[in-house]
């Protein structure tokens, strides 16, 4: 029997003749009936474009070449257009952001009815019969309250929206579902529920599933086969277990090691050097050559093909036979010993901290009585999902938000209300605490050079520096964060995301603070870059600066912090040494959180009481 989907030599180009810019080159794979396949890659790898080509959603200026066969029928015509005949009928697409996927001025039910009408399924249904069908469809995606059909998108949570969207996609009973990062915009606990739901529906319906994700662990946990994409082409295609235990391409292995493990402490955090090159720059060579440790001359003079290297295992590495053993030697297994920094006397002491927004009926409490202690030199993690109040906590400590109640002591100085501080005290507080924010693209002033930004921070610490001294200090700071001194003259626009985040760290260090508050400092970065920044922050901590590290990512918190508090709806629900807390969570919510992250081996932590509809609010 032919596979359900057969992609052969698919390329996607941008632009007219003469000025063609390739975006995806020579991608081939198949998806069998009822099979679940993962397509993994970093941003810019071309994975989303490939998905869009399958459902004929390429922008008009893009052309597809090669072959896409669905159930034996060719979808690509000679003009480079993909037929939209099967879209929305046999192939469905679930998109990334549930908050933007539904029409804001229409109800959930309207979307579902509309889609049912389009497909033959609901063509003849009217009135009560249609309502019953809508309720049945909602129940399939775990929504047992039919009244949800009357809600507008803005009235539903992310998890609910993604369920409604899924029900819409399923309305036409597709045979292949393409899910493009379906959980990236969701909280961790919701993520596991949605993935579980997708898996169940896929099994129940015998549907094929193509899961597109940047997260290897998610692919391992959900898929039987994994395709790894890099710089516009496939570099590996193997069963999920083999990708995990015996990666067949240096990039796959690099990615495996770059992902911060949730279940163990890694002695070394190794990112992949460099960044993903534009597809057009690596046409006649191996796309990964410039970042590869095993690179040889052949890698840069010809293009490697995706060839079988074992039973059902394919690799595009020309040197596979030479490096196979090294690739399969997993760097670290089991926990390595953590370097524990002894916590000194209390630097930050927070008691009964509360913050609420709005008033009257709209009053909403972001923090409800938080007690927290951070010793000097310590690395303390604050873990929580969106709405937990973790960012509010950071802003209160930094004096960017004034708490509604409670007390914040910084090294004996009461900074509960920055506005009431005397100038000298405010300046002292600023010298104790500094910060690194999540979004490296907006946390640096685009109008100022790196040097200006650093000099400004320096002048605050030591006002009377001479020009030469400032230059020397800037060089030292840039060196400390791993950037060459020439970067002082650059504007943020000329830096990559990882480089900007390094500058942000340098700016904070310029003040020589005792505590660095980090609010999701790697959440906006690609996996291979994350490890570099985490390693930098670990080094900063070892050199004596305490960290107050705010994150939703348990892998990140495992690697960087030695103690952790779990924040849930404005309160601390659990607190303890990082390893112990993550290995054996005591609190119900913490258990759920830990269970929602797949482990490096692709299994889920056994869930306590997972109910499929628990994000209904």
């Amino acid at each position: 029997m032919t596979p359900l989907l057969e992609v052969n030599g698919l390329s996607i180009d941008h632009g007219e003749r003469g000025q063609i810019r390739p975006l995806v080159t020579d991608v081939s794979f198949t998806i069998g009936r009822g099979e679940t396949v993962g397509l993994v890659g970093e941003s810019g790898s071309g994975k989303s474009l490939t998905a869009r080509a399958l459902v004929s959603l390429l922008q008009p200026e893009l052309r597809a070449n090669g072959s896409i066969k669905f159930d034996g029928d060719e979808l690509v015509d000679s003009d480079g257009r993909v037929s939209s005949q099967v879209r929305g009928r046999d192939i469905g697409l679930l998109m990334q952001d549930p908050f933007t996927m539904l029409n804001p001025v229409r109800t959930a039910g309207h979307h579902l009815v509309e889609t049912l009408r389009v497909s033959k399924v609901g063509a003849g249904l009217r009135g009560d019969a249609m309502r019953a069908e809508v309720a049945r469809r909602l129940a399939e995606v775990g929504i047992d309250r039919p009244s949800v059909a009357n809600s507008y998108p803005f009235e539903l949570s992310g998890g609910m929206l993604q369920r409604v969207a899924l029900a819409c996609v399923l309305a036409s009973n597709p045979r292949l579902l393409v899910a493009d990062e379906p959980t990236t915009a969701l909280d961790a606990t919701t993520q596991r529920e949605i993935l579980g739901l997708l898996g169940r529906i896929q099994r129940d319906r015998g549907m094929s599933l193509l899961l597109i994700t940047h997260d290897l662990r998610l692919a391992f946990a959900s898929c039987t086969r994994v395709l790894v994409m890099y710089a516009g082409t496939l570099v590996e295609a193997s069963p999920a277990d083999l990708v995990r235990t015996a990666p067949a391409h240096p990039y796959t292995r690099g990615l495996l090691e770059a992902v911060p493990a949730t279940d163990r402490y890694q002695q070394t955090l190794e990112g992949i050097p460099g960044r993903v090159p534009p597809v057009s720059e690596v046409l006649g060579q191996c796309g990964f050559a410039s970042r590869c440790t095993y690179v040889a001359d052949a890698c840069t003079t010809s293009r490697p093909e995706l060839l079988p290297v074992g039973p059902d295992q394919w690799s595009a590495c020309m040197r596979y036979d030479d490096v196979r053993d090294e690739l399969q030697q997993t760097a670290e297994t089991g926990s390595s010993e953590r370097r524990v920094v002894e916590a000194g006397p209390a630097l930050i002491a927070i008691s009964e901290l509360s913050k609420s927004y709005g008033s009257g009926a709209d009053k909403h409490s972001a923090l409800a009585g938080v007690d927290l202690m951070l010793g000097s030199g310590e690395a303390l993690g604050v873990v929580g999902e969106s709405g937990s109040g973790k960012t509010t906590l950071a802003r209160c400590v930094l004096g960017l938000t004034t708490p509604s109640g409670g007390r914040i002591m910084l090294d004996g100085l009461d900074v509960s209300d920055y506005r009431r501080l005397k100038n000298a005290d405010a300046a002292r507080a600023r010298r104790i605490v500094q910060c690194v924010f999540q979004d490296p693209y907006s946390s640096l002033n685009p109008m100022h050079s790196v040097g200006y930004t650093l000099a400004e921070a320096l002048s605050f610490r030591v006002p009377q520096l001479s020009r030469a001294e400032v230059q020397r200090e800037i060089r030292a700071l840039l060196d400390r964060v791993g950037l060459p001194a020439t970067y002082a003259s650059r504007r943020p626009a000329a830096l990559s995301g990882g480089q900007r985040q390094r500058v942000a760290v340098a700016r904070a260090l310029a003040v020589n603070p005792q505590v660095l508050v980090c609010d999701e400092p790697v959440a906006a970065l690609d996996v291979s870059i994350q490890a570099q920044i985490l390693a930098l922050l670990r080094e900063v901590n070892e050199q004596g600066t305490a960290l107050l590290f705010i994150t939703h990512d348990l892998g990140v918190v495992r690697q960087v912090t030695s103690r952790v508090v779990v924040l849930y709806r404005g309160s601390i629900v659990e607190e303890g040494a990082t390893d112990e807390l993550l290995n054996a969570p005591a609190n119900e919510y913490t258990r759920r959180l830990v269970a929602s992250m797949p482990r490096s081996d692709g299994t889920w932590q056994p869930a306590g009481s997972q109910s499929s509809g628990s994000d209904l609010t």
Partner: protein
Amino acid sequence: MKIVTFVARRLVGMIAILLVVSFLVFGLLSLAPGDPAVALLGGPSKATPEAISQVRALYHLDEPLLTQYWYWLQGVMRFDFGRSISSQLPVGDAIGERFPITVALAMYSFIITVVIAIPLGLAAGVRRGTRLDRTVTAGSLVGFAAPVFAPAVFLIYVFAVQLGWFPVYGPGKGAIDRIYHLTLPAIALAVGQIAIISRQTRAATMDVATQDYVTFARVRAVPARSVWGGYVLRNAALPVITISGLVLAFSLTGAVLVEQAFALPGLGTLLVSSVNALDIPVIQAITLLTAFVILSFNLIIDVTYFALDPRLRRGVGA
């Protein structure tokens, strides 16, 4: 929030602004050079001592300013703005005479605007980067920048003087003749409005057409007609409605210039002649009427918005 509460709140705000504006409008009298009584009489030549004392009594000019305002406001509530200095008619009548022409002109140009601007903007927004789009963008730039009287004189020259298809001046008599006479003025007035609306429609369409929910509708094989009607138009309408207040302000200003250019006896020409004759009561009435029209229109826009946007209706971000 219930729509009644919403409208009530806006209404209170509108009345407050109207009161402040009315006070400023009332103050125009004291801006005029010389004795207000002389000004109200239409100049020193007509200001005999007994005429002055008569006017002083009529307008309560010897009372304190606030009391004067209070008497004036009471009159205004009954639509009594006093007598026009130049025509000696009650101001209400003078305005009533001119009102229909301006309204006809505004409606006419509004219809032209909607019929042309919205399809053009939609088409340009959908076929982004095509020749059509570039033409619409360039055209709206020209229409937006040109002062209203420029297209007016151009139209007069080409279609009235050279081709002789339309009359040069005047309002015409009877319905058909009036439409005929108002065609060129309405087009001249519509040029700028078309520029504003087509530009905004284009931007809104472009914005909405690239939203995920439109893509997702296409993914679900929702028919193109529903995607355009229920998704693109429906959502693009909101920002277009928002700027229609600006368009009205533009239209009122433009009407003054267009009426002047085509010698139409509307409110605009009345305002200009009253300003030249220092006919303060008429100026006051027209200014306050303008404010009333604009504020009422903004209220209608708010209510429309409220009805169209479920986020407001259900009390989020209201």
